[in-house]
């Protein structure tokens, strides 16, 4: 309230960034990460200028997307929540029946001119849908609405998990759970879900998980059992990080990465390169920037004026955190290997576009506040 009055009273002094719908604190955090990422990719790719240029192009494109999305009023998103969600579900079903198989998973839909991954769309469509759905009711939500939310959550999660794409399904499910949690779901239910989850774990293990997924989990506990097979990624990645020590081996001097012992070093395992070349200091720097972005995201969410905007902003921010936690956890050997990139650092376009769209929404929420009629 105070904020609103504050900004109203300074209506005339609205600065250029606000008019451009850019949140400068958030943008600076993002740009620092991206710049850092470029350096790391240059090193991890064996000093490939071509790869750096490609990544730079993606960064530019994603900034454009972010900027564009920031111009869209959250109210518009609210109106489109249901149609986009339904379209997403249909596309996921399409993948299920007509999708192309790549690397053993059925995730892509061939649109003729490009390969499209509907699960990626769902990463944003789904929290929008959830936020819209829950915010229709007075908060904290009643149990039956929570049940409705659960249905909305389970459909895409299961469809994606079935592809199989465990990483994305975790991210999608998490974004929905965050909406429900932030909406004020009672602690009793939270506790109940946690307990149910614990009970569900064995079922997941014995009936739902694929063999390769079980292997990944087992490998986590004892990577040395199969050091050249299942444990290779984890062992090499831990060696890279551990051998970096406090100060790191120096940029371009990481032997694990430069001599190619480290697999996937410019994509999912890029954090190991950071750990090796920049040491504990580098890791701490990265974690601090991430914490800063998350903090900023939660501030934006808290300041938002509608429940929809709050829940959406909170969910986007916390999903960003899930990326970080799952990725670094897996690369440093405390979580099983799941295909989740290190946000805004890893080489590759898809996740960056999605993330930046999300940040665009955050900026939109932050900068469209005063136009919202109470």
């Amino acid at each position, binding site marked *: 309230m105070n904020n609103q009055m504050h900004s109203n009273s300074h209506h005339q002094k609205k600065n250029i960034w606000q008019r451009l719908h850019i949140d400068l604190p958030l943008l600076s955090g993002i740009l620092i990460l991206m710049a850092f990422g470029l350096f790391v990719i240059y090193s991890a790719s064996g000093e490939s200028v071509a790869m750096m240029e490609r990544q730079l192009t993606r960064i530019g494109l994603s900034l454009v997307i972010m900027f564009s999305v920031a111009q869209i009023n959250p109210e518009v998103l609210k109106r489109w929540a249901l149609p986009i969600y339904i379209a997403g579900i249909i596309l996921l079903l399409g993948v299920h029946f007509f999708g192309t198989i790549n690397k053993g998973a059925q995730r892509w839909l061939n649109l003729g001119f490009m390969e499209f991954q509907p699960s990626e769309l769902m990463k944003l469509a789904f929290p929008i849908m959830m936020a819209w759905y829950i915010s229709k009711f*007075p908060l904290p939500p009643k149990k039956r609405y929570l049940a409705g939310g659960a249905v909305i959550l389970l459909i895409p999660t299961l469809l994606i998990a079935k592809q199989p794409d465990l990483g994305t399904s975790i991210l999608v499910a998490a974004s929905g759970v965050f909406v429900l949690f932030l909406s004020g779901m009672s602690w009793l239910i939270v506790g109940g879900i946690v307990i149910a989850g614990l009970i569900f774990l064995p079922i997941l293990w014995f009936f739902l998980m694929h063999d390769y997924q079980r292997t990944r989990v087992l490998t986590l506990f004892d990577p040395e059992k199969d050091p050249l097979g299942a444990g290779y990624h984890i062992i090499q990645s831990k060696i890279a990080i551990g051998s970096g020590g406090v100060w790191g081996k120096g940029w371009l001097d990481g032997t694990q990465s430069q*001599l190619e012992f480290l697999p996937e070093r410019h994509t999912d395992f890029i954090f190991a390169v950071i750990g090796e070349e920049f040491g*504990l200091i580098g890791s701490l720097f990265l974690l601090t920037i991430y914490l800063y972005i998350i903090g900023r995201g939660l501030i934006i969410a808290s300041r938002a004026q509608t429940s929809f905007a709050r829940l959406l902003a909170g969910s986007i921010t916390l999903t960003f955190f899930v990326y970080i936690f799952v990725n670094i956890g897996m690369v440093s050997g405390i979580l099983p290997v799941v295909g989740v990139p290190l946000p805004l650092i890893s080489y590759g376009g898809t996740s960056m576009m999605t993330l930046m769209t999300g940040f665009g929404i955050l900026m939109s929420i932050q900068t469209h506040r005063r136009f919202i009629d109470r």
Partner: protein
Amino acid sequence: MPPKKRITMHDHAAEASLFKRRAFFTFICVFILLSVLFSNLYQLQVVSYKDYETRSNDNRIRVVPTAPSRGLIFDRHGQLLAENQPYHSLEMIPERIKNLDETFDELNGIIEIDADEREQIKETLKFHRRFKPLTIKGKLTEEQVATFSVNQHRFPGIYVEAGLKRYYPYAELMTHVLGYVGKINTRDKAQLEQSNNWKTYAATKDIGKQGVEKFYEGLLHGLPGHLEEEVNNRGRVIRTLKVTPPTPGKDIYLTLDLKLQQKAMELLAGRRGSVVAMDPRDGGILAMVSSPSYDANLFVHGISSKGYSDLLNDKSRPLINRATQGQYSPASTIKPLVALLGLEERVINDKTRVWDPGFWQIPGVERKWRDWKRWGHGWVDVYHAIVDSCDIFFYDLVYKVGIDKMANFMGQFGFGERTNVDIYEEVAGIMPSRDWKRLRYNQAWYIGDSISVGIGQGYWTSTPLQLANSTAILANKGRRFTPHLLKTFKDDTVKIDAPIDEHQPIILKNPKNWDIINEAMRQTADKSRFTDATYTAAMKTGTAQVFSVGQDEKYNADTVAEHLRDNALIVAYAPYENPRIVLAVVLENAGWGGANAGPLARALLDEYMLRDEWMLPNE
């Protein structure tokens, strides 16, 4: 109020503050979880840093051992006896060959692999690890190496390897002394592991298998060097980080005299037999020949199984080192020592005379022991008995001394035990005694046993080296050395003398007895083979029965099958006054000792005694 209306009622302020609480809570959770990540990183990068640093280095640094070059072997005058020659072989990595036959077909015209070789390679491959190199052709000529190198690109997985291989320029001349090197096999590996030396053989392919090559492996081998290379995940070498050159093996100089060895081999002329020449002043072996011999180089490159079985099945048994493994009845060559024992035990003195009617009987026993001379020697004293090798004199002597003193005395001259010469291929021979016979045959000792032993027959066996050694002790009047082959070795540039192992000398109750016996041997030489020699010498021949002749039978060398003929033996030394060389010669189935081994001994001593020392190459 209808419930529907209440549903749409939002308490915005309450919702906002509820959200803020939840957001704050989640932020705390985020902070805690990031701290968990961080503490895990701290664990990896600080607590376990050393461990991971080591493993990272293990990943990237490959230590490639490099083989030391083997020490050279020279004779006492610096003549090269074993050297290392550049050697090229064609190697193949099985897993990189798609079609073996096609590859071999393609190789034809560059390096021929014939059908037999192909068969053998395929056979070997069955038990060969797919990623380990396999030699498909050794001993490439320079031309073959050049032609292949040009065509290398056509043969992935096949390459030429360069190295050094042992080469013995005198081929079969030195085989039994030098031995040879061969590929390290599982037994060698086990031994090296047991002695904790396996690590130093990481790059070494060959190891001493016999003779000096085996005995002095520790000196000759040297220490491996290392190349520290940085490699990538595919094992490709990125750069060399550090080079530690290997320490070459030490060059060794043997006591052998190449020319004497050559002369001995030449005189043996392929006959079965052995020659050992020693310097009595220090026990250094001047020549050690076993005939027939074989080319040691065959074994360096891995002898074919046919070649090996031919050697193994050869009736003249070339693989045995007769000088140290051949067990022969010493026969009359030990009569001087038996006489010495008689003098020492005062059973005889230098004036004692014994009547030899051509036979001898144990008092009260019917059986007659014949002299080699049917009609006897008449009255014989100790000089006469040695010069004419009178058997009767020694029958009587041994009968009076008894086997116990005999065995004990001869034991001091090295009979019945290994001389501990510096090659492993040596046997102890047999110095019979009461205990020995009980253990071996579970039988009591009979007087008759002693009688045979008294003339070096019966159970008594010895090696040519033992004969030379005992003669050296006699010539030395009791000084005893361990016979040896190593003279000096080179440490860096300094020549170090190998220690000489001298034992407690034999002290006689009456040292004059040495002179009596040596004098008798000098007379023997003077009266036969060395009458016209320009130097003084001493000797004693022997003729060992290979099979028993019945009591009244006559032995006729011409009518007996060759392998049943007598062995001819001789021991000799020169010069008499101050002996520099002792000789023992055994010629198998050659017949009468004096007539057959004698000329050989004379020729050899001539070679050594009459040569102009200044003509020899300097050390």
